[in-house]
């Protein structure tokens, strides 16, 4: 769906993006992570035709971002990191304005506007002037505008900034729903834990270079490569009331357990097996007389992946 070949952007002698080459398949949600000034926003601006690349080419849905700008704009929605809205319009009129700009017919425009106002919790503010909205509400309106014309590809640059925790949860659900609709979403954020929930691809960019790109899960996935957890496996935490040292030896003897780490009474290990096999391990531990106070799988740790990728190291 999105293909970049040696996409490069200079600002004078500063290389904002250096030969980015990647291919994001249709229907996937790709997290674009990296520190400030890494080149994420520059990449998004180039892919959304707002900035011309200095070198290289890119295609969205098979359309060249330089040769066929209008064609690309029909396919994409974009929410920049910072944006301005027409302050003097009402929320509903604002969305209607862009519905018209995207050539939606009147019936469809009315339907979509109502739908997105409801989904993003803006129904109560529909008649309010945009200028009177809070930062969070403006962010929601921006998201609604980006999805209004039912684009196939959506770029969201820090969409959760300015949102309270509840609104972040709603936004996450909204993006999951869009993922189910088969849309390709490219999202950049600093809150990596939230991205891990619904992203299936990750691109790590640092100093304008792509450090890592690929599917998040799976045997060849980025997560597996950086955390050492193989296909279907996860990392577990186990805490016992006493005899942690002995338990460490006990676990090492079990099959499928690797990367065992102990900190006081807590042990963390990668387990190569499904949840049922993990439950059997727990049964073996309790049967051996250990008093288990906690046994739970760890969440996918994107932060660890990001830190390792930035440092240039892998688990292998």
């Amino acid at each position, binding site marked *: 769906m999105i293909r970049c070949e040696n996409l490069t952007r*200079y*600002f*004078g*002698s*500063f*290389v904002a993006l*250096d030969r980015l080459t990647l291919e994001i398949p249709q229907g996937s949600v790709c997290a674009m992570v990296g520190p400030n000034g890494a080149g994420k926003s520059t990449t998004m601006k180039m892919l*959304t*035709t*707002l*900035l*011309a690349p*200095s*070198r290289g080419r890119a295609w969205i849905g098979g359309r060249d971002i330089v040769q066929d*700008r*209008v*064609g690309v*704009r*029909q396919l*994409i*929605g*974009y929410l*920049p990191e910072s*944006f*301005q*809205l*027409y302050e003097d319009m009402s929320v*509903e*009129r604002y969305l*209607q*304005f*862009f*519905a*018209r*700009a*995207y*050539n939606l017919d*009147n*019936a469809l*425009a*009315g339907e979509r*506007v*109502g739908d997105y106002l409801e989904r993003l919790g803006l*129904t*109560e503010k*529909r*008649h309010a002037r945009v200028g009177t909205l809070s930062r969070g509400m403006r962010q929601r309106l921006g998201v609604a*505008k980006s999805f209004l014309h039912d684009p196939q590809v959506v770029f969201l640059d820090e969409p959760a900034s300015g949102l309270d925790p509840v609104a972040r949860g709603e936004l996450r659900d909204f993006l999951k729903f869009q993922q189910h609709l088969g849309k390709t979403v490219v999202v950049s954020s600093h809150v990596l834990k939230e991205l891990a929930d619904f992203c299936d691809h990750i691109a790590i960019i640092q*100093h*304008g270079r792509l450090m890592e790109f690929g599917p998040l899960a799976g045997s060849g996935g980025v997560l597996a490569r950086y955390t050492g957890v193989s296909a279907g496996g996860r990392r577990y935490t186990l805490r016992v009331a006493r005899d942690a040292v002995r338990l460490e030896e006990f676990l090492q003897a079990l099959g499928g357990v690797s990367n065992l780490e102990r900190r006081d009474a807590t042990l963390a290990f990668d387990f190569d097996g499904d949840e049922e096999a993990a439950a059997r391990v727990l049964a073996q531990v309790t049967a051996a007389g250990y008093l288990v106070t906690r046994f739970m799988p760890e969440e996918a740790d994107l932060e660890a992946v990001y830190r390792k990728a930035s440092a240039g190291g892998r688990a292998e």
Partner: protein
Amino acid sequence: MSEAEAPLPAAAAAPLARAQSDEPLPVEADHTLLHHLGLPFYYRHTPGPLLRRGIFWFSFLGFILLLIFNVIAMPFPKDSILYTLRAMIYGRVPPYQTFEEASAALASQCFAIATVLSCIVAPLYSCFSLSNERVLGTMEFLRLAPLSSTGIVMGKAFATTYVVHLISAALICFGIPLGLLGLAPPEHVAYAATCIVFHAAAMSALGAYLATQTMVFRGFGSVGLSLAIGFCAQVLPVACVREGREGGFAALLSPWSTLDLLFWRNGYVSPVELFHSSTCAFVYALAAQGVLFACLIHAASRKLDAPENTALRHRDYALLLGMIVLAALGVALNFDRKDPPYLAGKLWELGALVLLFGGFGVCLLALIDHPFRRERLLTDACERLAGRDDLRAGRRLGHAAFCVLMAAVNGIALLLFLNMSGALARVETLLTVAVSVLVLFVVLGAALLIEASALRFQTFLAQAATAAVALAILAGVTAVPIVHSGMVYSDWHSCAYYSEAYYQYEINKKRGLNFRNYDPTSQFNRMRQTDEYAEYVKDLPDLAAVRRQRELYAKAPIALMWKYAPMAVLAYPAVFALTLLLILWFRGRSYRRLIEEARRSLQRSSGDGSPA
């Protein structure tokens, strides 16, 4: 039922109910012509319904008043009430002698108001609208809509002010039959109406272009610039109204001078022609405004796409130069067999003037609009260091070569025009040729200098200051030979003139012919005793020598300089060459510094010292 419980009237209740409920607002049907033309942004920065209604009624009442005051001013019979009314307002002397005159006046007033609205008010407002979008930062979302940049610029240029343009169109439609009733020739009325339309388009495009260029003073800078340039474009051609065949066609480029020509002077007396044809003049004036409109809209959309883009491509500049050459040729070929012979030379000279200002003006615009800003050059340098260079170095020199080529074409055309005017066979030959060659030199030097200053300095101010100082030095270097050559020639010409007069006087005296009024002997002797003239006079011993040398120097003026200032003939080309070499040295040095800067930057970014 108490008063408090009384139901609200239906009209008041409906909006309240809608506000309380969450019913969606109806989406307004958009079947306007503008929408079908791809201009969907008209509802941004357009007045609201109430203000629109206000504008309509204000315009309508104003128009009715205009109509009443014009109707009253018509020449009614003395026994009528309207006559009495007119006498009360205008006095005994009627403003109009005939109904036809009154109709034509009313038509011209309608056209004038339409001009104010469409050529001044609307362009300034649309310029503000586009500028305001950029200042507020809302342009980014507009650019994401599936519309080309040209579509967005056109939308902002015209759709925002469509109400004003509709009022103008109504006025023009009303003015056309009035003009015809006023016995104005139909082609004049048609041209006046078309000229307003084309000029409004060109002015709106100018506003849009300036709005994409600058955001100073929160967008009002572009409005001010638009006002200033628009004022010049509309007022300067008025000066050409009296020129007639020699250059009156330029009056057709502004609606004000057009109205002046076609209505306020009751039809032009002297012909306004191009290629000795009024039709050609009309067509050219419209075509010129059309080309200007197309170029400006194109430039605005290119700048909106990416500020680092040049405003126009080379082919657009070539087209503009072609239009200038066409105009010059048209002016030169305005000669009629019935005209006195001296007029032909005057017309060719006028054509040459058009080339001198218009042609070299286009060359200068192309020079300023060079694509190699410092950022771009740094990028190119980085690419070259990274081993990923393409042919941009060639393209950089290509732009300078293009400017020089345009200047050369224009210079050759200028020489041909001067030759046709007979100027080359006259005494000004030396200066003419020298000026043409030196203008080429200045253009070449400026092309290289502007690029070099862009390479060398980071801030625009420093770049502009360097370019200005360097251009001043260039101008000085070129002015000195021109002035010196002029002085040498002028001195020699004076000597030749007085020597010839003296020798002729002597011959006539010997023959017994008496010239009472003029005896050049004293002036000739005084000249012979002056050091700076003595050398010239020594070489002019008799009448035959004077005439022989005059003929020789007319054909080969450089021989005069070679004889009396041989060092200058050698030194000036050497100075030119040295200046060019200095410019090239400065350019090369600046470029090397830029490469160094790029290398340092790449080393910083890669950390290991190797290019990225």
